[in-house]
């Protein structure tokens, strides 16, 4: 057996209100490619952030043993010194700078006072060759494609003398061809003795490249699957580990709901990327929702789900949107305006509550009334009493835990913030609610409460579209499920007929077909 290069022992990391990692044990052998798989929010990225020192020593419990020594990393520099280099999912390159400048950003060549550009560029070129790039390092990053940018990231990591390279979703923004090239490059590095950890949602890639696969679920390592053999481990086998959890009582029963007429219908809906208009983000999607129905849209990150929902919501995302929209059977021409969408009684509850959902520096009261200020004001003068009463009403209804509705939203826990976000949109009195990852990053108890709220919405005759990348949630909450992959709807199932395996199989098939 090969030498263990890295061992993480009993790692526990808690965020206020959430245990992100619970007693995780994780071992990586020298010279292997080790895959870390799990659903969104399972704790993979948190684990890697602990490893690389982004969460410094002391903010977590447990030990990191690297190369036989117990390590205490206080920041990224500490871990990089030992050759642990992480490449994040979002490319962290400065578009206006050259490849060479980017590669040595924060790690400049030369002495203290002056950068030695000759060394910089000649060394950069050397590493670029290693990753198979023929570009000169003097080219600006904005002038090369995303595939090549990802390779630049790897070259940058190599320039840091990486011994243990961590790649977080390295292929998420790449097409099939670039992805395959990247994976082959990883195998090439392995031959040269590099150790790598890859985090990926794309299980076929994982099965192709990894020697060992560790499955993370709910902040714990569930199992480690050996993939050294000549026979590749089956994707189904990995999925089982990823999703195989107890399903009893995690989802409240929906009772007394009658499903009515079709409320929202879109046909041949196509949305283009706002910055790269030639790219289709949503491709020829047709769907409908009935009153009182909860429709799940399942897909992995980057499948185009958020973009679909936002493009329906007053074209708040995308350009060149084409297709037909019908509300209550009547064709609707919606303006490029969120206010117009609200007028058409559509609500979009964002997946990113802190980024574009809530005003954290304002109170619960202000956030609750924000999307429907007209209802509590006359001639644009806000009726403070009415506003207070509304906020109190929703605090009661949604069981928002707070001493007062004057509390700043930024001081609430994730679950309560999510409830405020829902309160805002419920107060806007929509008929159609597009819920984007309504339970992201909140704990199990709060999730249950959110599910109850969703059931109440359906019971009140609202049409609910629930976007989620958590399979059990989609299965447990939906009446009907659309499956989305790479901008297209690749399947539609009744909830009774769907299983986790069958949904994953649809996605895998569509991926292979492409």
């Amino acid at each position: 057996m090969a030498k263990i290069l890295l061992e993480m022992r009993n790692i526990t990391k808690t965020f206020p209100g959430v245990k992100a990692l619970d007693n995780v044990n994780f071992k990586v052998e020298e010279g292997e490619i080790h895959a870390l798989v799990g659903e969104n929010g399972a704790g993979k990225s948190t684990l890697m952030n602990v490893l690389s020192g982004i969460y410094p020593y002391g903010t977590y419990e447990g030990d990191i043993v690297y190369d036989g020594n117990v390590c205490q990393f206080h920041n990224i520099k500490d871990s990089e010194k030992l050759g642990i280099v992480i490449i994040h999912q979002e490319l962290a390159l400065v578009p206006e700078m050259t490849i060479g400048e980017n590669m040595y950003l924060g790690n400049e060549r030369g002495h203290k006072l002056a950068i030695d550009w000759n060394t910089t560029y000649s060394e950069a070129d050397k590493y670029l060759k290693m990753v198979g790039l023929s570009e000169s390092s003097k080219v600006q990053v904005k002038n090369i494609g995303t595939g090549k940018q990802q390779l630049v990231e790897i070259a940058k990591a190599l320039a840091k003398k990486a011994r243990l390279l961590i790649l977080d979703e390295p292929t998420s923004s790449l097409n099939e061809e670039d992805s395959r090239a990247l994976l082959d490059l990883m195998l090439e590095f392995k031959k040269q003795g590099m150790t790598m950890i890859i985090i990926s949602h794309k299980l076929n890639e994982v099965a192709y490249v990894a020697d060992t696969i560790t499955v993370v679920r709910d902040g714990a390592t569930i199992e480690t699957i050996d993939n050294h053999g000549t026979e590749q481990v089956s994707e189904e086998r990995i999925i089982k580990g990823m999703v195989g959890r107890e399903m009893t009582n995690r989802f409240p029963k929906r009772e007394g709901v009658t499903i009515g007429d079709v409320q929202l219908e879109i046909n041949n809906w196509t949305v283009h990327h706002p910055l790269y208009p030639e790219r289709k983000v949503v491709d020829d999607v047709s769907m409908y929702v009935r009153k009182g129905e909860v429709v799940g849209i399942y897909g992995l990150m980057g499948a185009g789900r958020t973009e679909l929902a936002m493009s329906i919501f007053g074209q708040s995302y995308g350009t060149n949107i084409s297709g037909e929209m019908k509300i209550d059977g009547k064709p609707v021409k919606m303006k490029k305006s969120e206010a117009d969408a609200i007028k058409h009684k559509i609500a979009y509850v964002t997946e990113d509550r802190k980024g574009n959902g809530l005003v954290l520096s304002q109170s619960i009261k202000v956030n609750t009334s924000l999307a429907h200020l007209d209802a509590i004001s006359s001639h644009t003068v806000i009726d403070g009493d009415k506003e207070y009463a509304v906020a109190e009403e929703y605090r009661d209804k949604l069981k928002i835990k707070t001493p007062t509705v004057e509390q700043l939203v930024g001081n609430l826990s994730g679950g309560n913030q999510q409830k405020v976000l829902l309160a805002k949109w419920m107060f806007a009195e929509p008929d159609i609610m597009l819920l984007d990852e309504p339970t992201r990053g909140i704990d199990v108890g709060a999730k249950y409460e959110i599910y109850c709220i969703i059931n109440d919405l359906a019971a009140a005759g609202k049409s609910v579209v629930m976007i989620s990348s958590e399979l059990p949630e989609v299965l447990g909450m939906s009446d009907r499920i659309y499956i989305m992959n790479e901008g297209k709807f690749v399947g539609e199932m009744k909830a009774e007929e769907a299983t986790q395996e069958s949904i994953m199989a649809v996605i895998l098939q569509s991926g292979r077909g492409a």
Partner: protein
Amino acid sequence: MEGKVINQSNIRKADPVSMLKKNAMLIILILVFIFFTIMTNGRMFKPTSFASLINQNAYVYILGCGMLMCMLTGGNIDLSCGAFVCLLGAIGGMMMVIWGWSTGVSLVAMLLVGIIYGCGLGALIAYVRVPPWIATLAGYLAFRGLGTSILSVSITNSISFKDKPDFLNIFSGVLFKTPEGQLNVPCMIVGIVAALLVVLLIFKNRLTRLKKGYEVDTIGMDIVKSVLGAAVILLVMFKLAYAGGIPTVLLWVAAVVLFYAFITSKTTIGRHFYVVGGNIEAARLSGVNTKKIMFIAYLNMAILTAISAMTVVSRYTAANADAGKNFEMDAISACVVGGVSASGGAGSVLGMVIGATLIGVINLGMFQINLDANYQRVVKGFVLLAAVVFDILSKKKQR
């Protein structure tokens, strides 16, 4: 639910530390005022000091309201307002004095020029997305030059409004004028009525909140608030009553300040300013027309600059090439010292008024103790910095 409300105590607990923090600038203002009163052997407390505080700082309060609205949208500022005051003064002088237009027509025309500039500036910033400080830097550079070239019709580079008493009366006159040193009765009556109104409002608000079962401050806090509010009004009016009467510019300032206090705290549009500055994406996705808000912020600023220009020209009875110099910095300082967030989304008109008054008192005090003008600038710089550092530190502790 009703049972819960009854059981719950609706009296907000008095928390001395947070009370102190919340009103720190007000307390500092009072302390600074006392300090200068002692340092000047009581000269600071004389009626003339109160009159000059108001006359000298009127433009800060007016521009401060506009700057506040800009800063609320995300820490955006207007660098051009000072130079625009100069240009508008020159235009006003041209119209009123050189061309002999009537006062009314000239004032409307000045306002129109402000509106036109505001629309252009607002469109550039909101729709063309020119960063505000660059868009307004252009005006900062251009307007004084333009204004001075207009003023060059006069050999002194200055147009005098001496012969326009109707104009001067509107902006720098005195209501119910009496000789200095004599108690001005109407002035006192206005003060008493205003003070009573403030007390009445506080307690009416308290009663309605109690009736509806909402949270209220302790009765002690409300008494302190009313006494303080009434005392400040009575003191100022009492002093003004001995300084000859109510300066008309005070009415302009009061109207503007009250209007913007109302807009920011009670109206949907005011709310939109706060949420755009707090999280522009969340505002947009909640149906707020964020571009319109940015547009209005700068249009509004230009209109207030026009009003400010009128008061300034009137105060100096002349349009000068130097008019409005550093006004933009004074307005920004007033906001920042008054706790308006430099990154937007937080701040109040009352805070800005306290900030402006604090700076005004320091200026006057330093002048009265004959501090060297160069050192005065040094002190002002440090006051500004101290206010921001204080603001950041006190916010850090809340987390």
